[in-house]
């Protein structure tokens, strides 16, 4: 069976009723979708199917033959993050990270569908409503999606420098004259 995953055509051997999650993780080694519950309850396995978010654990492989599948691996890499990835990083939208892939893909689909125009907090809560996070209480996640929908970008170089500060790096923090 043929699948298009992150722009590359893949030939897969799993049976037609294998879950798309299983195919991605175990057969194609694409591990950003997570097996959080394998019953559609948590959203950690969400991927984009032809641009729309869908639970890969609930999706029989045969139902997506020929479809375009996008996972977080297909969004961007550390050098060129999408607005959603930047915002989740800079606005602390990820804590343990396990729900992050599903959250970001649901947010990406929302922002792509609307160009981010006038995305309200209520819409974000509706679209992300099936995604569970156990760490953050959702506030940071929603703030990150709001920032991404407004097209906010972040200076990742500066963020990275702050992350490695403490050695010879120049600190961006106001250290109050003490060092």
């Amino acid at each position, binding site marked *: 069976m043929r699948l298009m995953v992150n722009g590359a055509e893949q030939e897969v051997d799993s049976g037609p009723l294998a879950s798309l999650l299983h195919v991605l*993780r*175990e057969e194609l*080694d694409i*591990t*950003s979708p*997570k*097996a*959080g*519950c*394998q*019953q559609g*309850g*948590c959203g*950690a396995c969400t991927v984009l199917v032809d641009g729309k978010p869908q639970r890969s654990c609930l999706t029989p492989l045969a139902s997506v033959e020929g479809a375009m599948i996008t*996972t*977080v*691996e297909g*969004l*961007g*890499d*550390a050098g060129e*993050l999408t607005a959603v*990835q*930047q915002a*989740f*990083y*800079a606005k*602390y*939208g*990820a*804590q*343990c*990270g*396990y*729900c*992050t*892939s599903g959250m*970001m893909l649901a947010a990406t689909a929302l922002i792509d569908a609307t160009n981010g125009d006038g995305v309200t907090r209520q819409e974000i809560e509706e679209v992300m409503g099936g995604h*569970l*996070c*156990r*760490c953050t209480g959702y506030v940071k996640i929603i703030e990150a999606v709001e920032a991404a929908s407004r097209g906010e970008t972040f200076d990742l170089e500066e*963020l*990275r420098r*702050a*992350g490695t*500060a*403490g050695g010879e790096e120049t*600190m961006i*923090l106001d*250290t*109050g004259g*003490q*060092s």
Partner: protein
Amino acid sequence: MKAVGARFPRYDGLLHVTGRTRYVDDFKVPGMLWCRTLRSSIDSGRITRLDTSRAEALDGVYAVLTHEDPDRNVVGHLEDLGVPPDMPLLAEDEVRHKGQLIAAVAAESEERAQQAVDMIEVDYEERQPFLDIRKAFDPDQPQVTPDGNVYFYDPYDHCRVRKGDVDWAFEQADVIVKGCYRPQAIEQAPIETQAALAIPEADGKMTVHSTTQAMYFSMGIVAKFLGVSLNQIKFVGGTVGGGFGGKVDTAVEPIAALLARKARRPVKYRSTREEEFLALWTRAPWHIEIADAVSRDGWILGRRTLTLHDAGAYTGFSAYGAMKHLHHSAGAYTIPNVFMNSYVVYTNHVPTSAMRGFGVTSVSFAVETHMNRIAGELGISPWELRLKNGNRIGDLTPTRVKLEDPSTVPTILACADAAGVELPSEYAQMTPGERSGELLPEHLEDQLGKADAWRNR
């Protein structure tokens, strides 16, 4: 360099947002087998027959684990602290809770492992379970352990805190305010279920990739089940996909390691969501009784508590959890005379364990609810009641720790501010500073300086 209060980016944030963080379940090695488990379908009973032969004969099955396989099958999580071990890793002749582990299978796929589990034959002779901690002292209840339903803290059957003269407090009281609070079990429910990948190495050592929150602790536990010294095991931790206390329990690592040793192949055990909810340890349910001796003007003169901690079927960490709970049973308030007892009660529930403030969160719920009840009965503001009795510098805790920097007063003031509550100025201006004047009534004078005297006794 100023780090406290600064906002640093998450050190692992870039990996998270690019989907590159490697969690245990993301590791795969050649020849890796998958584990599925057989767990008790009943709350309590004797195992009269366990036959794994059909499962062992199934194609693609490499190992079936039962109680005969571990070097030691009964290892106590706190045995090195003197808490007697009581829980078998794999049930032998009896099961004490639904979901208790009986056997585990390593096979070429999860499906095949599950098929093998379904072929294991087990017969039970069911017993009446004991499920309600409130009935711990009732006669004729089912006995969970041969030694009864209550854990023994030598020399008592409970842990206790005593301070001051509680009888005096109850004689002086204008009002006795009583309450009973029963916070229920809560599953930690991290989005990442517990998982382990055990790899037998060519030199006989074992590498274990683990989701544990407590690396060295889990390593020690696994070494005991395997009967090897610590230098025969290498633990690989890393990013944990949420733990909240539930991943100190070392539930999956011993199984993966024992299966890997028996099959001589790497074994991954990824617990299912059902196992997380039904079989892995939860925050404990409690039965918390509080009676406070209160004066009409809002001083808590004394407190008696009797609390029952539902340990579930085995001791686990409960002996520690109940004690920690007890030490916080006065809450963030200064109560000079206390008489507090906490019992660890065995039931036929799944064993209970840590979750975000082990034992403390549950009693805080009870104490704070009780504070509102006191305020209601006295007809005074619950904010003022809390601020008046709140811990201050120089106050003594029930365990006679002299407080140097208590945060009760600023915390309550911040809460009032956030809730838009306007307090009278004598409360709004309050600081955590040492008690004096009206805030130092006679019954609190005694406690000042006692800690030093007690330490130097």
